[in-house]
């Protein structure tokens, strides 16, 4: 049974923390309790009162932007699906499109989707009903990170409950609308977070991103119109339907609309995540919510939105955390999860660690990413180990250029370049000191994997 006190305090935040007010990590709400707490109102409104195009208009007007990292307007993404276009082709009639929820949260330093998936699974199901209805999709998939066992279990329970309560399956809530929802747990590749690689993986193919165009909205899963949305993006939908677009816009003064789940990890006192209005400053996030730097440490730099964003440094502390402002500061909002580097840790080692991750996770399709990331790892390993030369810095800069946007098949390698390039700019001295002194100036290699140390050492 739901604790009435908990519910009252949760509901008090319904309009300020719409995404997380019902989160209960110990025991997520079952369908009755979720409905009791105002759940499925949005979905009911959508399927019984609105046409798909009206829902689309509502979502477009709300200004919702994708929370997966790129910040693409959700309404615009949806409107490219043939069934929602004015000139709809006969072949793309109802039932011929798919919705996929991207729950393959593998960005280092990011754990916001997990919070929603484990804490309030029904919210996602409700969201997917709304989105699928809008897209005229009769099948929807949740592509879940393989390691999210708890989420998979809780989601499946929630899906079962939704079927039992006629929120999934045939003739949802007495309407003519039908939706089947499936969970697919990933076999585990970072690249599956890229929507077209995700679609390939879901089809049972190699998880290589696809060339665009055609975009998934036209030729996606099994060649059918498909929309892939992030968990957090979708989770906004019930609230937008319930409270309207104006409310959503007003959640965040002077910034992108809505709230955002921000997170912080690394050398901070109080790592965690918080749903805050869009556009909170880095300073507020870091010093008020995350409790500031660990004792004895100064902020050296931070990645504002996961591993594939550029470093920001103390001078950027007053930048609002929204898509545009972070962009102007030279980085990307990404997932909104800060990775904080203190001044007692080696930035070269941190970048090396990140690049190892990207080189490991490269799908191997295009040359710049496949060979470029590995090459960068080779150079960074030598520098960190005190065997770098000044030529290496030139080579690294060239590699950054080589792997940049427009030159690669997808955004993985440019994402790898972002921390590397910005680190070489902001922490130039550190790189040069490594080379000059022939060793890591931080005297700690705990971020460097043992494998690479021994490999380089063996090579002399």
């Amino acid at each position, binding site marked *: 049974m739901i604790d009435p006190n908990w519910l009252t305090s949760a509901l008090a935040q319904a309009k300020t923390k719409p995404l997380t007010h019902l989160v209960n990590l110990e025991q997520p709400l079952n369908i009755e309790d979720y409905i009791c707490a105002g759940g499925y109102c949005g979905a009911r409104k959508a399927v019984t009162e609105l046409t798909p195009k009206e829902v689309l208009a509502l979502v477009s007007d709300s200004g919702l932007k994708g929370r997966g990292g790129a910040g693409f307007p959700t309404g615009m993404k949806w409107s490219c699906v043939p069934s929602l276009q004015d000139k709809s082709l006969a072949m793309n009639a109802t039932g011929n499109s798919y919705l996929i929820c991207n729950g393959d949260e593998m960005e280092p330093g990011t754990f916001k989707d997990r919070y929603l998936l484990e804490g309030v699974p029904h919210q996602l199901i409700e969201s997917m009903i709304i989105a699928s209805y809008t897209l005229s999709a009769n099948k929807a998939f949740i592509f879940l990170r393989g390691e999210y066992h708890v989420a998979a279990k809780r989601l499946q329970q929630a899906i079962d409950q939704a079927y039992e309560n006629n929120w999934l399956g045939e003739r949802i809530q007495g309407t003519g609308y039908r939706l089947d929802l499936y969970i697919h747990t990933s076999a585990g590749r970072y690249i599956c977070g890229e929507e077209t690689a995700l679609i390939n993986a879901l089809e049972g193919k190699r998880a290589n991103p696809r060339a665009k165009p055609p975009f998934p909205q036209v*030729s996606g899963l099994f060649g059918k119109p498909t929309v892939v949305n992030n968990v957090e993006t979708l989770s906004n939908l019930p609230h937008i339907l319930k409270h309207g677009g104006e409310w959503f816009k007003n959640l965040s003064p002077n910034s992108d609309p809505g709230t955002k789940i921000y997170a912080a990890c690394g050398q901070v006192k109080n790592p965690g995540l918080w749903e805050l209005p869009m556009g909170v400053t880095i300073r507020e996030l870091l010093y008020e919510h995350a409790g500031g730097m660990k004792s004895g440490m100064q902020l050296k730099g931070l990645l504002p939105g996961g591993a594939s964003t550029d470093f920001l440094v103390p001078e950027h502390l007053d930048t609002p955390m929204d898509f545009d402002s972070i962009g102007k500061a030279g980085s990307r909002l990404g997932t909104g999860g800060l990775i904080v580097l203190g001044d007692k840790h080696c930035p070269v080692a941190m970048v090396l660690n990140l690049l190892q991750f990207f080189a490991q996770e490269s799908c191997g399709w295009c*040359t710049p990413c496949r060979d470029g990331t590995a090459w960068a790892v080779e150079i960074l390993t030598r520098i960190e180990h005190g065997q770098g030369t000044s030529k290496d810095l030139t080579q690294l800069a060239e590699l950054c250029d080589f792997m940049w946007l427009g030159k690669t*098949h997808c955004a993985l390698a440019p994402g790898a370049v972002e921390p590397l390039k910005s680190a070489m700019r902001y922490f130039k001295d550190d790189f040069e000191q490594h080379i000059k002194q022939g060793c890591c100036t931080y005297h700690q290699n705990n971020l460097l994997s043992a494998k690479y140390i021994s490999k380089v050492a063996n090579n002399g």
Partner: protein
Amino acid sequence: MAEHNKTTNTKEVTIYIDNIPYQVSTDNNLLAGVLSNKLNLPYFCWHPSMGSVGACRQCAVTQYQDEKDTRGRMIMSCMTTVVEGMRIGLTDPASAKFREQVISAMMTNHPHDCPVCAEGGECHLQDMTIMTGHTSRGYQGEKRTFTNQYLGELVGHEMNRCITCYRCVRFYKDYAGGKDFDVFGSRNQVYFGRQKEGALHSPFSGNLVEVCPTGVFTNKLFSAHFTRKWDLQSSPSICAHCSLGCNTSIGERYGSVRRVMNRYNHDLNGYFLCDRGRFGLGFVNSSKRITTIKGINSKAGDPLTARLNEKSLANALAEHKAEQYIGIGSARASFEANRLLKYLVGKENFSLGYNNNEMQLALRHKQLLTQYPQQSLAGMENVTRRGRGKTQHDLVFIIGENIDQTAPRLALTIKQVLRNAALDKADDIGVKHWQDAAVRTYAGDKSTPLFSLQTQQTEFDELANSAVVLSPARIIFIVQCLTNMLKVDFSYEMVVPIQGTTVDEGENKHQSDSGVKCLDLSENETKYLLLLASALSQANAPLIVTGLSLKSAALLKAVDNLMACLSQKSHGIIPELTVVAPECNSVGNLHFFTEHTLSVEQILTRLAQTPANNEGKVSKGITLILLEQELSQISQAQRELLRSQCASMIVLDHSRTALTQLADVVLPSAAVSESSGHLVNYQGSLQAFYPAHIPVEPIMQNWQYLLLLAKYLFTHLSINFSSLKQLHLFFAERGEPWALQVMTCEKNREKRGKVARQTHRASGRTAMTANQSVHEIKNYLEGKYTQEEWLSYSMEGAYAGKGDEMPYTWSPAWNSNQAVFQHQKEVNGELQFKACNNLLNLTLSAFFDEMPQESLDEKLCELWPIEYDENKPQADKSLILIQNLPWYLAEQQAKILPEFIMMFAGNTVELSAQLAECFNCKNHDVLKINLPQKDIFAKTVINPQLPDNHLLVSVFELSIKVNNVSLTSEQIAKADHDEILKFKQIETSRFTEASKEKAAILARLKAQDQNIPISFIDRKEQ
């Protein structure tokens, strides 16, 4: 949707490359447009025939918004659609630098083993490295290493060289439909190979050698004894291993053929060959080659001095002079040689080596060809469509011909035809056909309807909407039923036989069991027919494929009727027919086919009537002259009978056969790699082939030997010419159109001047024959061999690209076969110097042409009676033997190659469980089949899908020409203990002999490099 389908119209637009205007076509991508203008832009993953996927990023260029834009943005040209007025930079520093970086990134793992790599000197990666200006390695780390796999006898694997362009898997899996090859792993550890080590199954695996831009996949036969491309002497040739006539380029050095490469022919094989064509030519180096003259004073042919003593030959031939001669030509000898032989012996005394059944078959074949022009492979694939928007095939129906075995390259074409439906679907959302990945994503599972009607399971069964395995007689019956249905506009309800089946099936079934009547249809057959008829009724341009391998004239007749019915305008269908001929010059021989042509049976009769010992003198009888003919369809006893009844037997052949053992005189003729002439492919196209090198005497070209025979045996004909060109002239003067066509064509070639067989950079051109004389070879050979050829045996002359038939593919900066685009009018288009398309004008002789259909059957049976007629119900319990040799053994000449023999798993006979029970045998039991040709032994394999009267045999010792013969159950028995032992011994020794032969050939050829055996010395000098 109708408008969408018309998006393929060619449109030329102007684009600006480095501010210079160029015309490019909107049908293809920007990369193809740049290359079509003969500009150098490096690439790896894109392939002209396989389209774009955007993996390697090598073809990056800078695109500018307008004239004022100086920064531009980088795009991948292979992934970019061409639009009017677009501005791109090829030489701008940004894109040039990026392209260089791509190479340097690939070089982080590519080993520096060029000296031992067979690809060296024609490596696309080497070319692109130079082209991008990458000159030094920056990478200091370890290179990744892989374990290589054994991929069989044909293709070598060296994965460390891989630059991960994905071309191999895209060819093998996507384009050729192979299933045992894939891509594994990720990041910079991507592995291309098989899940498990083992021989590649695909008959197109050899194309990996050319598709791979570097030396990961190599031709094993070549790399065991490799030479650099620049040191090869090459000639334009025609593949002699099936009737398609794919164009090949043969490379030779030190008197031995080293390899076969694809020679681009826009209409025919395009960029790809099958493995029988690529590797099968190895037979020319076999120890089965005949190198001496048999039966004449041994001084006549001495292989060591390499001289041919014409005087002693003349003396000896005088011994074999006879009153009458019968000449037997063959479908693997050149058109000219057959023509000459027929002229020598006269049309009344000429045979094609066919038995009565094959004669009837030949007539039906000729009938079909005169009525239905045969499409080229490109026509079937509708390659032209990516431009000219012709209708494409929307249904494929394969009848009684296992094209995987008989014409493998056609099977590859059919696989592309099946993609038509997917390409059409891609048009719906405006995805360009060259966007390979996007088309496969959007419409990957969409396949053009395919129906297969075969005597055995084939590779196509799983792609087919419906496929049935039936006996030949049932196949004919199904085709007849289908024709009946079509006659009444597809309304199958009105067709009596089918109606009958569905109504009282039980009764009919009973009848068929008793063997009295089998004209009713089984449930399966009915279902198949209904599906097929309804699909055909919706098709606009069906492609019907059939062939002669079942040796069934009745089948061809049934197909003829079907085509006639389909072609009726009222159906609104434009059907196309493709008939697979048995051998490389079968269609050429149809030209000589008349009512006078002798069958083997007629020859035997004639011989019996003209006893050899008439008046006690041998010379008064009939002398048989056999041109590269082994008469493998008849039994050894018949061959011996032939020999005993003729006065003399003169055989011209390149390799030992049963007949060369019997013959009085064996004249060693040159194989296709050493001779010239024309072969006529399945379409009737006369295609010229030229020698890659001059054979060692006494091996001479077949027509040269025939001229010697003319000189000494057919003196009354006063033939006094000595070259192929004069031979053409001789027949041209006699009004033969083919000769005129060929002469015009050769004249055009000569006008353009000599083309060199050797490359401009052939090294040591004077030193390579220094043990004999320090001269260029050419000087000695002028006159006898090369005077009248437009190809020279040296570096002298224009480089290969200037010929319409290119000896090899090369152009400046492009040393690999990728160079071909430099010689095409546009990428994927025709060659700039297009070879003349000489179509043989096939006409039925008036004797047959004016005969009504009904009396034709009668007349045929009168001329060439055959023992059993497939149309008529079979005798009780009669069994049918169907050949099922794998593609690499399904042709006589290829069967000699040791590598192919080593690939063969052993003799098998497949039969249904019920039939196996009749012989009381289980899986793996050895069966003995008593054939008139010989006793054959094979392991039993139970195949539940086979009809109960079917024996599907794959027996090495049985000639491929013996097919669809009926047997009685008495001819089959379980082998006894001794026979099993003997069988097992034969099976093992076949493999060990082949592997010994493989090693022996290699050792001999390597030794030969040190002691060049070619006779370069002009006879007149001594």
